[in-house]
Each structure stands twice: as structure tokens, then as C-alpha cells.
């Protein structure tokens, strides 16, 4: 398998305080790679450096062998799609307008919106079962619906590499599963920050663990999500088993206030 994304020694600091330090990550074609770690460990910061919301202090990132930071914003947006946490849009756009914005990396200055763009937008919405809300106002949707619209936008963007920045935070469990299922079904390469360890265990092919801005450990979910690692990184006790139905790891947290034998 060829490597699609190669991150080497990525370092970024806010006002002299290192947020992420010498981070190395590689993502191969077709992989679903998870980035886990406690709050403030730098998951989001790593991703923001990748989708160019932040400029790193040191290190290099290569996408398909090309230096990401030398690419134009447009060129990188044709390859990498991003779904962030639900963001406030203070202005009243229609759902289809939000999704159509996914087409903007493919547009030059004077290009009009074509029929093909419209078809792509409607197809993306239909794929998520949201064709009937195309004309509705984005502001009036529920959190889960909004997140699905953003996924539709990234589908309309037609990239084969997705960066997900804890896209299911604050969503109901049904939506969390739905969103990850949808992404999985797209069969694209994914690098995702994931808050919930059980979600990471279910969906990821490989996992990187961040602690204090450094990569602490990496490997398959079975290699990474051990009782010992969870204790070291999160400071909690847990029980890790293979679930009989999913055949995936299931992590049960063991709070101090309960008694176990």
C-alpha cells in the first residue's frame, strides 16, 4: 500500500509553549487512522496544521509525495476534505448553498455554477437522505442534521482524503454511529481525531495516541488500547475485552467509586 500522508517532526507552539512536539504520523491509502488522547493533548492542533488553519513552526507534511505547505490552498482543498466540529454559521444559508460551497475548490474566479455542480450537490444530499431539506435553512437544522450537511459538503468536494476533527462531539449516539458509518461507506482515506475510545476501537485500522503534544504510542486498536496504556495516558482503570458480536475491542471504564472483585 502506498503512503498518502506523511507527517514528519511536526512542531507547533502557541506563544512559546509547545502544543505539539515532533509528531510523526503516516496514513496509507484506504486506511482509517484514529488520533486519540486526552483533552489538550494536541489532537485538534495536529489536524489544524494539516488543513492549514495553523502554520507549523517545524516539520514537514507530504501529501501523495508533494510538500503540502508548498501547495496552493486550492490545490490542497482538491485533495483533502475536512469535517470539523459543528460550527456556528451566523448567517442564514440554505442547506444546498452550504453543500455547494464544497465545490469552491474546483472553481476558478469567473467560473459559473454549472448543472453538473448542482447534480453533485443533490447527489451528495441524497446520499445522506437529506434531499428533501435542500431548500431549508441550515440554521434551523438539529445538530446531527447539520453535521450530515457538512458531510454532504465534503462529499460534494470530491476529495479522496478526509480529515475529521471530532466530528461527532456533542451528538447523540445514534448520530455518532450514523456519521462514522457514512464516512466508512465512502471508502476514502481517513485521519480522524476521536474522543470516544470505543468508537476508535470500532472504526479505526490504526490508532495514534497523543499525550502532552507527543505521539505516545501507535498501532492497531488491539495493540494500542490496552489496560496499561489507558492507565498511563488517561489515568483511569479499565477492562478491555473482545466483544462477541462486533469482534472489536470493547472498553469498560472502572470508576473508583464502584467496588469490583
Amino acid at each position, binding site marked *: 500500500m502506498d503512503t498518502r500522508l506523511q507527517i514528519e517532526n511536526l512542531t507547533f507552539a502557541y506563544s512559546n509553549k509547545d502544543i505539539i512536539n515532533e509528531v510523526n504520523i503516516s496514513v496509507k491509502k484506504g486506511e482509517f487512522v484514529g488520533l486519540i488522547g486526552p483533552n489538550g493533548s494536541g489532537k485538534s492542533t495536529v489536524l*489544524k496544521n494539516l*488543513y*492549514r*488553519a495553523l502554520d507549523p513552526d517545524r516539520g514537514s507534511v507530504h501529501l501523495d509525495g508533494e510538500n503540502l505547505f508548498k501547495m*496552493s*490552498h*486550492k*490545490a*490542497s*482543498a*482538491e485533495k*483533502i*476534505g*475536512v469535517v*470539523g466540529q459543528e*460550527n*456556528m*454559521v*451566523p*448567517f*442564514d*444559508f*440554505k442547506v444546498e*448553498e*452550504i453543500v455547494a*460551497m*464544497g465545490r*469552491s*475548490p474546483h*472553481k476558478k*474566479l*469567473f467560473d459559473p455554477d454549472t448543472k453538473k455542480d448542482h447534480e453533485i450537490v443533490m447527489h451528495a444530499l441524497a446520499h445522506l437522505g437529506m434531499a428533501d431539506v435542500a*431548500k431549508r435553512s441550515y440554521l434551523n437544522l438539529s445538530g446531527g442534521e447539520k453535521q450530515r450537511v457538512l458531510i454532504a459538503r465534503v462529499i460534494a*468536494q470530491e476529495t479522496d482524503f478526509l*480529515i475529521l476533527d471530532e466530528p461527532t462531539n456533542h451528538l447523540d449516539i445514534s448520530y455518532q454511529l450514523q456519521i462514522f458509518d457514512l464516512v466508512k461507506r465512502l471508502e476514502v482515506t481517513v485521519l480522524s481525531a476521536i474522543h470516544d475510545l470505543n468508537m476508535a476501537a470500532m472504526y479505526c485500522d490504526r490508532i495514534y495516541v497523543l499525550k502532552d503534544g507527543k505521539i505516545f504510542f501507535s498501532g492497531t486498536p488491539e495493540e494500542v488500547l490496552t489496560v496499561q496504556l489507558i492507565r498511563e495516558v488517561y489515568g483511569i482503570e479499565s477492562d478491555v475485552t473482545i466483544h462477541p458480536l462486533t469482534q472489536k475491542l470493547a472498553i469498560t471504564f472502572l470508576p473508583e467509586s464502584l467496588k469490583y472483585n
Partner: protein
Amino acid sequence: MNMLNLTVKVDVSTVVGINFCGFFLEKINKGIWGKGMNKTLKRIRNIFDRNNPNIVAIIIILMILAVATIVLAVGLGPVKVSPANVANIILSQVPFLSGSIPHTWTDLDYNIVWGLRLPRVLLGMIVGASLAVVGVTMQALVRNHLADPFILGVSSGAAATATLGMLFGVFAILGEYSLSISAFLGAGLTIIFVYTISRVNGRINITQLLLSGVAISMIMDAITQIIILSAPNALGLHNASFWMSGSLAGAKWGYLSLPLVVMLLCLAVLLINYRSLNVLLLGEEAAGSLGINVKSTQKMLILVASLMSGVTIAVSGAIGFVGLMVPHITRLLIGSNHKNVLPVSALLGGILVVWVDVAARMVIAPEELPVGILTALFGGPLFIWLLKRNTKEV
């Protein structure tokens, strides 16, 4: 772009505009008689359907309204001139046409229409369009409905540097453009300053934004006052009330060209970049991930907003709340897509300012109110309402 041209460029274009409108009126008439009233009503409703507005039709209607506004507003004032005479006087100034226009007016009519009111009304159109577009631009920059050059102190900044420039003749070397350039610098500095103060962790904090805007406008107004009070004779028409409340009273033909050119240029630049403006409303991170170079787009917006507000304020003073009211009404009418918001705001802004200015010279005639006082009277309450709604949503 063309449409704006038609409404504001007088010598040739107004006529073209009138003929143009006549053509469409004819079409609309045919529609009424051909297919019956119900269908026409339905069609009108379809044009303004917010989910799928017919933007071309709306712009054409607004252009007709703008031309009608110009003709009617020129006639209104302490001395009334009939719309027919106004139209004749305007048309008589057009080469080739002047021979065929009946001479129905008096010299007094002519002096009032051509010498006083027409430049004033056209300046109102240009200023209103500019202020509305500046509002749209600043709202995209800070991602909030509440941005307006007046509220964020940009008008005050422009006024302060403009008066400073007049007093010390800093840019005198640039001749007639010196006032506009010093106002542009003040506007630019204020936008950059307010914008930098209110950025907290990479996001615009709206409380900081509004408060720093208030503080800056107080400081800048104080500077303006000091200059005006210490050199009352040097500034002539540009007295305190001009800068603080705005006025179109001193309009001359010579004032029109620079603001018009700047407005059309800036509007063109913004329209070319309408996708970037739309995407920017989703937030900087989302915009970056959609292929927009956020920093250079923001720089472009700051430059465009400073240019337009500086040049406009140099000729009209601080007419407040236009940049707040007009984009808001526009979005209620046709949604948030900048491709539509920009031209519609420009037309609505022009029409609004011209009518408010008509009111300003009629309400307490023969005395005049500064036009900015009236816009504040309407705009202030709308601002408070938006502020309430804004805090509810966040």
C-alpha cells in the same frame, strides 16, 4: 455592474436606463393583459420567493425603482419641480437628444435640478450603495450582522484623519484627492485596529468588537472636535455636523466621479470573489479547508472596506447604520449568497439614502436635518433588535 452604471452615471446612462426600463415595463404590461392578473400576481410572488428568488427580475425592478427614485427625489424639496420637468431637464443635457426635448421649465427649475439637486441625489445613490456594500464586506470580515462602518468607528476614524489632513495639508500634494486619501487611511487604520483588538484566539469576539468600536469612535470624534473647534474657518463646509451626522448638502458634480469609480471597482472585486466571501462566513477554518486563502482574502476585504468607506465619508460625512440596515433587509429578501446580496444591497442602499435625504430636507423645511440623524433614528432600533437576537443565538 452595468445596472449600477445605468442608475448613477447621468450624462448618457440615465437615458439608456429609462429606455431600458421602458422596455421591461412594456414586457410586464404585456404579461398582465396576455395571461390575466392572477398569473401576474403569482409571478410576482415567485420573483420574491425567498427560497428561490428570481435575482435578475429583482435587480431589474430595483433598477427601475432607482431611476424613478432619482427623478422623483430631484423634484422634491422646498421648491417642487414636476417629475416631467425633471426628466426633460435631465434629457436635455444629453447630446443628440437635446434638440427634441420640449423646453417646459423655467431657469429656476433648471438651476435647482441641474445645479443643486441632481448631483445631490446622485451622490446619495453612490454613497448609499457604497455604505451598504461596505457593511456587507465588514460583516463577512467579522462574521457578524452587527458590523457597520459607523458602529465600528470607521467613519469616525476617517473623519478624524480627513480633518487632520485638511488642517495640516498633509496630502495637499495629491490635489483634489487629498481629502479622500486621508479619509481612506483613517478608515483603514481603524478597521485594522478594531479587528486586531477583537480577535481572541483566532476568533472575532463580538463584545470586544463592538466595545472597541465605541471606544475608537469616541477617541476619533474627540480628535475631530478639537481640530474643528481650533480651526473653525479652515474647514468651511466640512464642519462638525458634517462629519458627525453626515450630509449630502454640499454635493457638487465634481464630488461624484471618485466615489463612483471606487464603488464600481470594489463591487466588481467583491463580486468576482463572491465564493470566498460566502465560504468565509462558515468560519476561517472551514474556509481554509475549502481552498480559500483566508489571510489574503481578509486583507482584500479590509482594503476594499477602507477604500470605499474613506472615499465615501470624505464626501458625505458619517451617515450611520446604512451598512447595517440594508444588508439585513437584503438577506431577509433574498438569502445570504453574496453573489446576490452585493448587487441588491448596493441598489437598495442607494435608494434608501436618497429617500432619507429627501426626508431630511423636507421634515423641517426650510431648515435641513443632517441625513445621518434620520438614518440613526431608523437604524438604531434595528441595531438593538439585532443585538438582542444575536445574544439569544450564541
